[in-house]
């Protein structure tokens, strides 16, 4: 249920980014919501469930954006592992670096992927522009906090089961009763 909820949410975020956040095809200020989800998964969810969510997310992004298939999957997975590694190894208290680290990792991973695609000659990309990428990284950081709240809400609701198993559970009759 949790995995499915986050897959649906991720796809919805990508759709919002490609439609409502893009008034023109050359619009710069479209926040990369998907990367915030990547960050959330790295910080809050276990590996297996995160990978199950990242796989369709990367695929959706590859379909709706860009001309190099697989590029977004690389971006999502490398971003996820970098953030996971960093959150495990950094000695500072988690909440202090969570959001800036998402922005920083977004810049680093984007640069690495751009370099990789460019050097392998898989497809022609628009030249790297640091200021544009910094703007996008800032947008990612700005939207991180509200989206983390949303993800927390979704996670809490998704973890609730539809059927109240605890109420339906058969109770043994040898329970300790309060003394009269």
């Amino acid at each position, binding site marked *: 249920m949790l995995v499915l909820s986050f897959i649906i949410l991720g796809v919805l975020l990508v*759709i919002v*980014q*490609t*439609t409502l*956040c*893009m*008034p*023109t*095809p*050359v*619009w*710069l200020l*479209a926040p*990369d919501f998907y990367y915030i989800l990547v960050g959330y998964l790295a910080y809050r969810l276990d590996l297996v469930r995160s990978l199950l969510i990242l796989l369709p997310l990367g695929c959706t992004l590859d379909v*709706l*954006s*860009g*001309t190099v298939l697989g590029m977004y999957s690389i971006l999502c997975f490398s971003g996820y592992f970098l953030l996971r590694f960093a959150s495990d190894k950094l000695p500072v208290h988690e909440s202090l670096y969570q959001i800036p680290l998402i922005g920083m990792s977004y810049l680093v991973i984007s640069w690495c992927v*751009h370099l990789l695609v460019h050097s392998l000659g898989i*497809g*022609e*990309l*628009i*030249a790297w*522009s640091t200021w*544009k*990428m910094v703007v*996008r990284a800032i947008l990612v950081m700005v939207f991180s906090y509200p989206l983390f709240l949303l993800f927390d809400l979704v996670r809490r609701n998704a973890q609730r089961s539809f059927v109240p198993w605890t109420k339906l559970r058969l109770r043994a009759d040898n329970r300790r009763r309060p003394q009269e």
Partner: protein
Amino acid sequence: MRKKTTRKRSSRFSLVRVVLLAGLLLTLSLIFLVATLGSQKFGSLHRLVIEAVGPVQKLVAAGGASIGNFKSEYLDILQDVLKVREENKRLLKQLQETEATLNRSREALATNASLRRLLEFKNSLNRPMIAATVIGKDPSVWFRSVIIDQGSSKGVAKGSPVVSADGVVGQVFTTSPNYAKVLLAIAPSSAIDVMLQKSRIRGMLKGTGELVYKLEYILKTIEVEEGEQVVTAGYGGVFPTGLPVGVVSKVIKKPRGMFHEIEVTPAVDYQTLEHLLVIEQQDLSELKQVEKKP
């Protein structure tokens, strides 16, 4: 005893006085009545009465008016305020509805104008085309593509040219049964065979990722002027010949190299990209016709 007799006498005297006074008054009234009825004149008594009653009447009338004013100014206003509030609510709702209708009408007018231009363009080209609408845009900073709402089931094929009423937009990059991805001509991986309309010199139009094209492979020996129209060359039969692509906006003459560096401003306004036409590739449509014949 003596006291009793004195009291009796005085009460009798006062009774006589009252009777006398009443008689006098009655007589005077009678005289006044007879005199008034007889002469029908507004006498001095009448004037005296009116002078005496007038101020009181005036005062009472003013008081009544004040009460009326007070009622109309305060009590009625309170009622009016409530009425006005209701009216205000109703009018506000009406205004919102009217504004919404106006916006819808404006939108319909703009869409109508855009579609009319597109239809005119379609008729002028005389080639089978598929009308499509942009439903999504590439959000990345490294690519320039859009998703349209027509796919292979309607005849959209990979490589099909995509145009708007103003000129060339791009080429279909991938298709699914109901949707297709269009690589915009401003994308760096896009390359279109074009020619300068006036001099008929051919070159290669490449995207830069920004709202400007780069025209390559134009020899320095050729004189290129700013403002010259750039149109499709029609090589390979993908794009029909003569479709508007843009206007030469800058010619950079560098001492080194064989070719000019030319910037071309797109004919299409990429900021308002909405309704597009996908030109069906001729060989594909011919194949379909052949398939249908038996």
